[in-house]
């Protein structure tokens, strides 16, 4: 009985632990800090423009309307940008995964000669790069400006993702497994395709997500590389233009008609650009958790 009451007491004490409350409070505030801005934007996108202009919409729509979304779906250029974004993200992720796997697998094998030097060379590119201007000149000289390849090729290899995958493969695929496959007559590609990849699904899903989300959300390279071919603007760049345009008046320019896009349209575009990538998370969430846990516990 004593011990039971002791357990009770411990349990009781734990429930009112001040640190527990503080930690929960902290987590709650942090989550709200992420969630509230998003709810705010969603509310704006569903409100009447007059209230949005006056900054009167906070967490609940005022003058509820789907008008802005109707405009988005009627706007060919936004739908075209969505198509470009999806295409670029898919191609980019596939290419990125192929390159990363092809680099990470050999580097994770101990019998590859010079792998330390090779890894160092890859890692070097994480810390030092030419910078924006040399990058721009390179893409220009390669004739890739205003082509879809300028959005796919330059960033399709990430040394950071390579190092994560390499460590994961080193720790999760035992050499003995590879040796037994070799005894059975399997070559490098057979081992990679039939053993390594199926056994590494969690980390591969995680890295694919890194690639896809990174590509989907970035617009800066598109801002530099896609200038004249407006058909190739990805969604985030389109959104960037929609939001920054006409936020100031131009004193030197005669303005005959009001030119700014409605605030509510900007908000609905943000939501429109966020939802597709948001939909991917639930499907790979279980892999994602496993993936980031890899290597966290040493046994």
């Amino acid at each position, binding site marked *: 009985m004593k011990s039971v009451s002791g357990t009770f007491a411990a349990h009781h004490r734990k429930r009112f632990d001040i640190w527990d409350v503080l930690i929960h409070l902290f987590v709650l505030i942090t989550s709200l800090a992420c969630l509230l801005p998003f709810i705010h934007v969603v509310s704006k996108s569903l409100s009447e423009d007059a209230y949005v*202009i006056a900054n009167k919409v906070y967490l609940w729509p005022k003058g509820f309307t789907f008008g802005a979304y109707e405009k988005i779906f009627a*706007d060919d250029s936004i739908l075209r940008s969505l198509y470009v974004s999806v295409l670029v993200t898919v191609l980019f992720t596939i290419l990125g995964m192929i390159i990363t796997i092809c680099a990470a697998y050999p580097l994770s094998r101990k019998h590859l000669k010079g792998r330390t030097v090779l890894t160092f060379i890859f890692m070097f590119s994480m810390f030092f790069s030419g*910078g924006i201007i*040399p990058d721009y*000149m390179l893409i220009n000289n390669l004739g890739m400006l205003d082509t879809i390849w300028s959005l796919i090729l330059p960033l399709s290899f990430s040394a950071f993702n390579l190092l994560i995958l390499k460590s994961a493969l080193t720790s999760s695929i035992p050499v003995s497994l590879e040796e037994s496959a070799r005894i059975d007559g399997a070559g490098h590609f057979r081992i990679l395709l039939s053993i390594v990849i199926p056994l590494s699904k969690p980390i591969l899903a995680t890295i694919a997500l890194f690639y896809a989300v990174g590509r989907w959300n970035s617009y800066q390279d598109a801002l530099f590389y896609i200038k*004249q071919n*407006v058909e190739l603007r990805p969604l985030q760049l389109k959104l960037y233009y929609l939001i920054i345009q*006409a936020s100031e008046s131009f004193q030197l320019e005669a*303005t*005959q008609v009001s030119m700014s896009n409605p605030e509510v349209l900007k908000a609905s575009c943000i939501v429109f650009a966020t939802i597709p990538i948001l939909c991917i998370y639930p499907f790979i969430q279980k892999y994602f958790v496993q993936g980031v846990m890899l290597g966290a516990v040493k046994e």
Partner: protein
Amino acid sequence: MRNKKMVSMLMAFSVVAGLMAGCTNNNSKTSNDPIASTNNTVSEDTKGSYPDYSKGFPEKVTLEIPVYERAYEGWNVTNNYYTKWIQKEFGDKYNIDVKFAPITRSSEVSDYQQLLASHKAPDIIFHYDMPQALAYYGEKVMQPLDWDEIANYAPTYWKNMGEIDKKYGVVDGKNAFFFAARPNVDNYTTLIRKDWVEKVGMKVEDLTSLEKYNEMLVKWKEAGLGVAGEVLKKNNYIFNYPFRDWPIDAKERALYSDLGVADLTSKATERYLQNLNYQYNNGLIDKEFYLRDDDNKAKAEFVAGKTGTFSLFLTNNTDVISATLTNNPDAQFAVLPSEALVSEGLKPQSRAYWPFGFIMGINYETSDVERAALWMYLDWLSQPENLFFLQNGVEGQNYTLDSEGIAVKNVDFNGESVLSKNNNKDYWALVTETVQYSTPELTKKANLNNWSPVGYEYLGTDLLTNYDKVAEYRTPDALFSIVLESVNEYKADLDSLFQELYVKCAIAPESEFEATYEAAKKTYLEAGYQKILDEKQAAIDAGNFS
């Protein structure tokens, strides 16, 4: 150990080499120097004898015309009904492929710089502001012009703009720029909450001086109505004109007036800041004006009923009035008289526009035939029927003509030939800045149609009356005919420093204003403004301004 040292040396070398690679001046495609370029137009051999392309070019010519990208929803700036129409009516006729190059309106300079760096800049390099146009010229990305060549290929354009091109387009003795026309009109004004003015027992007509205006703001505050709207000054510095002495000293104006570099040290600016400081300390203006760094933020305050004044380009499709009414159903509006911002004893001065809109130069990489095609395009665009079509669209669809021949826009039209949100201005602004009819009266009437919100027609009329009333005090800034290097060098730094310093002066306690202002002046002069003043003074003494 030695090996490690070698590796470190090699790494350091590779980093430095990588960095230096970006600094090369190697230009694989073409020479950067327009003078050395084979495209130089002012050669004596060709002057006066220009090939005839009136029946079209023997080989296809590609013309790249810049067009502002303003990200209008549902509008493809480079491929739409009107770009296709231009190709069909002009391009196909002369064997020219007319392409449009989008230039982001709000980051046009960086867009141009990138395009120039990649040798993909369009054939025209344009800007609204002379200092920036001179900066482009100073970078040698424009080729010299031959007035006779323009007159030969673009007689209509030259007839309209030749005099202005010759008067303002010469830099350092070379023909550098050509221009679009700018009719003398302006719809920038300040709206004031008429219901608030009347609630405190005054009338809008009573606001005949800054003193009266401030008196009204005090009453607004006492009645708990709200404050005057105010924004953070940046980019276009025209704030101190109403505080200047009259008549104007032309040399002093040349020294201090600059849209790109704010003047912090003149007597006019001191008066302006003193008033701003008074208004701030007495709670008469938006307390957080330094956060209102774009029009939308100031608009939000006005629409929400927190501020009672808002400056804008008044247009018939403005959303300010309807949005304010949604939030404040009793709101009434009036145009703030120009005198309300002028102290007693001073005159309601303002900056007049120069008589040109776009300032344009030809890309140094543009070839002779492309340049000829470009002049032909300008001429074609200058034809009244083409201009009218681009400005108004298809009769019966986009507009109907009223009894006087003015195009009345069909606002609900949404068909294939729909105009861009700013009435296609970005396509026709290469020849004129605003729509013009055959007589000034008709133009005025058409402008009024554009500037009068439905149900608030008196605002448009008041705006015009206000504009005409102070016409004699509206004068253009001086134009320098040389490149001012120090302006290009210090402009960006001084821009941000000015914001910091003037806000500091505005929010200082009234008793500390003098000391804060003196310290700000010293900092500003030392940060490069003194060098600008010195260079300008030297140019003024040499007579290089008009």
